[in-house]
């Protein structure tokens, strides 16, 4: 039973091999067998999760030589992530089978898709450092082939070049972290390392390793200012975007969650994660407001959501970060795949007439109501068990709910609308408290609790609450100021993502005239 989860990536590896054998147009056998493999992977993931329900988390023996080989770590984190990735993998494969019908290289596409999925699964299941690093790199390389599915598209090459630098840096950082951990703990077994770290076995090497892990995670999760590539990879068929935004991008967050015990050895690192993540979250979500193209807007949303997930990691709320990864992946996979409906959605929004804009009074009332709601629901779920970090995070989220209430409390809003938005607000609050309680319960034996905050942590918590609260207020009163001429310049700079991308392009000669690229030559060989 130790190797049960391993059947999931194996099934997809087989399909990948088949895909490379029949790389061409309308590969019917391949499409059928790839979907069967994806369904089988879901079944293996479900079986593994069920098995875990009755057994303690464990790591399988290592298949291989010495420290090099494959071993399976099965715990709540890997089980949840495996279920997520197999499910999203099935959705994406099924979608691609129809969507790419008639493409000359559909077989190869499915092959690379399966290989990417298998790599992600091997990463999630990694019980040892070597496997972790190898599958991390394999994920990145096979994804790159998908991003360059149309190798002669200039913009695809530009994005790939931009992704290349952070991706290779992340690979290097992760390899460095792995070496440092292995040197210090004299093992490559991840579970052993984690329990040693949790017992307090730290020092310069593990702290440096933690820093490298954080660097790798931030680069992988497109944190500011290395986010540029993520917002420019719409040059490849939509299912790749879905897979990227719902699967691969999570590798960074997964890394931090997997090594939570090691990360906690370095409190300063946590502070950096809070700052970088918090800034990226606010920045990304503001840029998103200005984006008129649906996929681009979704990509900026991912930047923001990954920032928020980093913030949660920085606050030591690893179970919530895991919840965020799962919830965001499901939402984003659907949003990308359904992005063709944007024309209809915009038209629908326009039909019921003008939007009721809340004024300052309504916004004030909405925030008070939201805080009252927080107190009420919070008491029902029990505040006393929660860490200050969790309470602060709840407050940040409730600021969001206030926006919902504010729309219903606007002077021009009819009663019926007020009632409906209030209902939505209550349902939302209850739902996320319940989901958070569930996430904490599910991972209680695997993930460490948030550390008791010291002065630095308190300062950061307060800073985070204030800045998110500020943005929330600003956003609730949005139409009252956003069209003021003074905001016009800000809008231009924001919509360009503060030019981080343009600078990267300049450094990497992104706008150089097209010449036969490496990617093109590779694909021809």
């Amino acid at each position, binding site marked *: 039973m130790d190797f049960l989860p391993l059947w999931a990536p194996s099934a997809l590896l087989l399909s990948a091999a088949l895909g490379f054998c029949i790389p061409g147009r*309308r590969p019917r056998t391949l499409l059928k067998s790839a979907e069967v493999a994806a369904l089988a992977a879901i079944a293996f993931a479900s079986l593994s999760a069920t098995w875990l329900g009755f057994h303690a988390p464990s790591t399988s023996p290592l298949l291989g030589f010495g420290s090099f080989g494959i071993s399976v770590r099965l715990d709540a984190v890997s089980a949840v992530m495996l279920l997520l990735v197999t499910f999203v993998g099935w959705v994406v494969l*099924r979608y691609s089978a*129809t969507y*790419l*019908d*008639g*493409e000359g290289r559909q077989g190869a596409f499915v092959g690379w898709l399966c290989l990417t999925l298998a790599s992600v699964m091997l990463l999630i299941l990694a019980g040892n450092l070597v496997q972790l690093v190898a599958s991390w790199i394999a994920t990145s390389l096979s994804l790159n082939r998908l991003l360059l599915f149309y190798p002669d598209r200039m*913009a695809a090459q530009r*994005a790939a070049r931009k992704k290349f630098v952070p991706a290779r840096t992340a690979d290097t950082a992760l390899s460095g972290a792995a070496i440092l951990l292995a040197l210090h703990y004299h093992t490559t077994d991840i579970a052993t390392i984690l329990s040693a770290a949790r017992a307090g076995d730290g020092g310069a090497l593990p702290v440096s390793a933690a820093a490298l892990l954080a660097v790798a995670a931030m680069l992988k999760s497109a944190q500011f200012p290395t986010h540029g590539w993520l917002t420019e990879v*719409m040059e*490849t068929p*939509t299912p790749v975007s879905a897979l990227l935004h719902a699967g691969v991008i999570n590798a960074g967050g997964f890394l931090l969650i997997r090594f939570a015990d090691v990360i906690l050895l370095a409190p300063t690192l946590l502070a950096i994660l809070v700052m970088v993540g918090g800034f990226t979250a*606010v920045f990304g*979500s503001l840029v*998103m*407001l*200005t984006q*008129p193209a*649906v996929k681009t807007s979704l990509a900026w949303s991912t930047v*923001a*959501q990954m920032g928020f997930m980093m913030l949660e990691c920085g606050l030591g709320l690893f179970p919530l970060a895991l919840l*965020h990864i*799962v*919830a965001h*992946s*499901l939402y984003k996979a659907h949003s990308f*795949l*359904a*992005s063709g*409906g*944007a*024309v*209809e959605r*915009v*038209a629908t929004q326009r*039909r*019921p*007439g003008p*939007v009721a804009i809340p004024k300052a009074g309504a916004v004030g009332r909405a925030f008070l109501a939201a805080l009252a709601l927080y107190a009420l629901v919070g008491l029902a779920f029990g505040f006393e068990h929660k860490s200050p970090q969790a309470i602060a995070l709840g407050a940040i*989220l409730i*600021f*969001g709910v206030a*926006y919902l209430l504010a*729309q219903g409390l606007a002077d021009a809003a*009819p009663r*019926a*609308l007020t009632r409906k*938005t209030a209902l*939505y607000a209550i349902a939302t609050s209850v739902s996320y408290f319940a*989901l958070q309680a569930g996430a904490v319960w599910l991972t209680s034996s695997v993930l460490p609790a948030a550390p008791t905050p010291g002065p630095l942590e308190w300062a950061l918590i307060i800073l985070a609450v204030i800045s998110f609260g500020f943005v*929330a207020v600003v*956003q609730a009163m949005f139409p009252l100021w956003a069209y003021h001429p003074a905001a016009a*310049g800000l809008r*231009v700079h924001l*919509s*360009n993502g503060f030019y981080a991308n*343009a600078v990267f392009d300049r450094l990497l000669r992104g*706008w*150089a*005239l097209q010449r036969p690229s490496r990617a093109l030559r590779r694909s021809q060989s």
Partner: protein
Amino acid sequence: MMNHPEFPLIDTESLKHAANQAALAIPPAWPLASSVAVNPFLGQSGEGLAEVGARLARVAGVAVTMPRAWYQERIASGAISDADLADALINAPGDRRPAHLAALKAMALTLSPTPKALPTIADLAAQASGIDWRALIAERLGSWAAGYFDVGQALWAAPRGAGAYGAWRAVATHDLTPEIVGLRGFATHVSKAPDNACGAMARAVQRLRLSAGALETYFHQLLLNLGGWAQYARYLSWRAELGGASDETITELLAVRLIWEEALFERYVEQIADPWTAVLAEHAAPLAPTADQIVDTILQEASERAAQRSLALFLSAAAPAVSEGRPPLQVAFCIDVRSEVFRRALEGVNPGIQTLGFAGFFGLTASHRRFASDVHELRLPVLLNPAVTTCAGGTHDLPADQAMRFKARARRAWVRFKLAAVSSFAFVEATGPIYIGKLLTDSLGLHRASPPNDPAPSFDPALDIATRVQAAETILRAMSLTANFARLVLIAGHGANVVNNPHASALHCGACGGYSGEVNARLLASLLNDTAVRADLKSRGIAIPADSLFVGALHDTTTDAVTLYSDDHPSPTHDEDLKTATTRLAAAGQATRGERALRLPGADTERGIARRSRDWAEVRPEWALAGCQAFIAAPRTRTAGRSLAGRAFLHDYDWRQDSRFGVLELIMTAPVVVASWISLQYYGSTVAPDVFGAGNKLLHNVVGGIGVLEGNGGILRAGLPWQSIHDGERYVHEPLRLTVCIEAPREAMTGILTRHEGVRALFDHRWLHLFALDDDGRMKWRYAGDLQWTPMNDSTRPEYPLRIAV
């Protein structure tokens, strides 16, 4: 270098004129929410294909015909015969055509040289600097235009107050990107530009040393480089002009593009001044098609003549016997080629059933408000202005209308919550898991889109009786339906039923402005059921029996299901008729799906079709009008009982009932023109997909709620997506200019062409082919241009010396 006295100043009027001419050369692109097929050569209909070939080669570097290999394949297979080639050759204008058939066939075996556009300053600057300025301009302009034209995607919309030029300047003076890439001082350059578009153009024209002669094709090229953005701006002016106003957006876009050229010219003047002078000389040179372009045009003409040959054969076959007596059911469809298949199937179910073809807005040009909506939708051909305003439901539906609005507004508040800055995090953490269900239902195609089912539409304000009677009479006479009414008469509009498809409206009814046609159909049914109207119609010679019931319907072209809106006019005595009709329509739907499944890749069987319509990943839910090649206005008996394979627009027309040829004039000036737009849109998207097609559906990124980008950003892509004309292995649309066959006296048609110059230009320059059918429905006369007709199968045709030379 700022002033060049040796270049004569171009006065403001000529400059404005040149800019307007360039704007007229660009075809309009409707927003995707109500997209309409547009003739991409709209601005060039006064020229022939070869001349347009020369023009577009210069400004866009594209050909307007297929590659030689495509024709060669058809010549080799015999699809294009020697006679077709010879006919096309001898009828080709000009003296530069190949001398004889053998020379033409030899040319067909060679490759046509790939046309190369003249470089713009951006292209020259790119060569000089190694920086891809053309791509950067497309990206920057696209980034601004996407925000400027956005109708509701971004929560924080771009400011629009100052007009396009002012809005762009406000953005470009803040945007640091061009300077980061390497165009130093661009923001300053923009801030110092004249503060109106006209002034900016004048300054740029002077600094770029443009001569009056160079303006035409250079301006055309700059606007064409902006792709769909210029086309959308052209749509704005089209709409404004139809309403008697004007809109300058497109010339302001031209000014913006000129400012870029000016800035790049000044930046790289030393390297590019000389080549630029040479380019300007070429712009100023008159346009003339090359020998290759002439040959391509002749080959294209030959392929059309080949198709006309088979159509003539089709029409010469004996017509089936007409069943006398009262038909058990009459169904009027839109002329759309998709209805040909369904009509044939329905007549096959019971030969007594009479079907009719008429433009799908059924003569009622409605500005319509849907249920619980403030938006006025123009459900009429885009060539016309609305004559009536209508809305779904009456006063007794108001409470339901209100309730639905509240629901929609609450849902909108939820969407804003989902997208806004801080709340998006709360949204994800609270509701992410719900998407498991959504992913499952969408992946398995469990979500079924129901056909539109608003309350019955009504005129708002109501029409007085005289207007209603007049409308009813005009429409019935135009349909050639004035006697022998069945007990049940269905008026069937059509619409597609697809999910997750940005081009969904392109599958709807073109005659209804890109909306589905059920509203107009239901309106007409209610008009004709009106007892007061019927009483007056009787006095005008149209007697509708009291037991005749009109019912609006919607033909779903994706699944071939037909929805009957029989609740609009409850009539218990017609229960049996409705039941029978439903059964027959279902049988016809099944037969139609069976025929369509053969063409749709992966549909396998008739049953696969419904599944495809619900599949969110399906990029080819139906073929829409792909394959269209003929328009036939004649009584149905001329075409009944034989298959036109969904390639012909069928308009019912009986000239003997059309005493003063008023209906003929209507047909030739409205449905024929709409059909030409459709046919030429397919033509343009097939022969020049890079310029007139929407690109690859797999990369589409919906922008601003109005159109699609291909990939990250850049220019808007109008036209048909590649997947709509190609099944992965072959074209599903054969690019042929439409063959129009009308059964009517030649003199009547000549008279109409004389009165309508625009229509005449389409035929004279062969954007359409016109044939007169004789009294047996045979293709008897071919319109040869210049108001002349030549007989078909002409025995006096010179036996070509050309042919002897083979």
